């Protein structure tokens, strides 16, 4: 039997890697992928809690997170394409129109 804490630790490590990628990468596409990584790590811990507490709610929440992640990826990439058309760069540190 694998202890519940192993899943939580794995989830925390993957989430932190996602946070690092989100804060450090310049490529906006990889920033989005780090976001997906973070959502996936949360899904792991929700599914683990759902199994160990013998409840279905964690798994239902995973469905909703996957739904919202799909919507977020579609909208985010559409914004990315619309932005790239006006200003051909996807480097995060060069997207500074609001900086004043």
């Amino acid at each position, binding site marked *: 039997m694998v202890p519940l804490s192993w899943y939580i630790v794995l989830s925390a490590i993957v989430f932190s890697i996602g946070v*690092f990628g989100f804060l450090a990468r310049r490529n906006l596409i990889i920033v989005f992928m780090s976001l997906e990584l973070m959502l996936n790590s949360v899904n792991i811990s929700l599914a683990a809690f759902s199994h160990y507490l013998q409840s279905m709610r964690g798994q239902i929440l995973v469905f909703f997170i996957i739904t919202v992640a799909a919507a977020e990826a579609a909208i985010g990439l559409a914004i990315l394409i619309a932005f790239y058309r006006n200003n051909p760069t996807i480097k995060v540190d060069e997207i500074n129109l609001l900086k004043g």
Partner: protein
Amino acid sequence: MTIQQAFFSYFAGAIVALSLLVVTRKNPVHSVLWMLLLFVHIASLYLFLNAEFLAAIQIIIYAGAILVLFLFVIMLLNLRKEETEKRFQGQWPFGLAIGVVLAVFVVLIVGKIGVLPELGQYSVEAVKSEGHIMTVGKVLYTEFLLPFEIASVILLVAIVGAVVLAKRSLE
């Protein structure tokens, strides 16, 4: 170490290594391909947790839909010259520090968790006797009916929004 723990260790190590590869590769296409492998490993982890339907959903939606979307966008944008430039922003050490602190923080907290709520009615045997998809469906369409409807509206908004945003002109 039992056989389950050995298998879990393999999958956990592979997931951590693959997520590091995803956030550090220079070429976004390589990142997407490593992420595909990562999602397959996460789906196997769901099989560990007796969530077969989640594993199937993970492969179909994440690997089949979202990653293909990412690949399409990478293909639509011409990123040849970006590959030769720096991959990290100037403040990347702060990002690394925040990530490490977050991981250490959660790992320290996990050891302190002593009280868990009482167990629910969906034990492994109960789910096995009815089938996983049927159990999930019963909960989803009764207790979570309103969130389910809201999720469908969110998907509709995403479809319309993506088309409107990516279209060149709305006429």
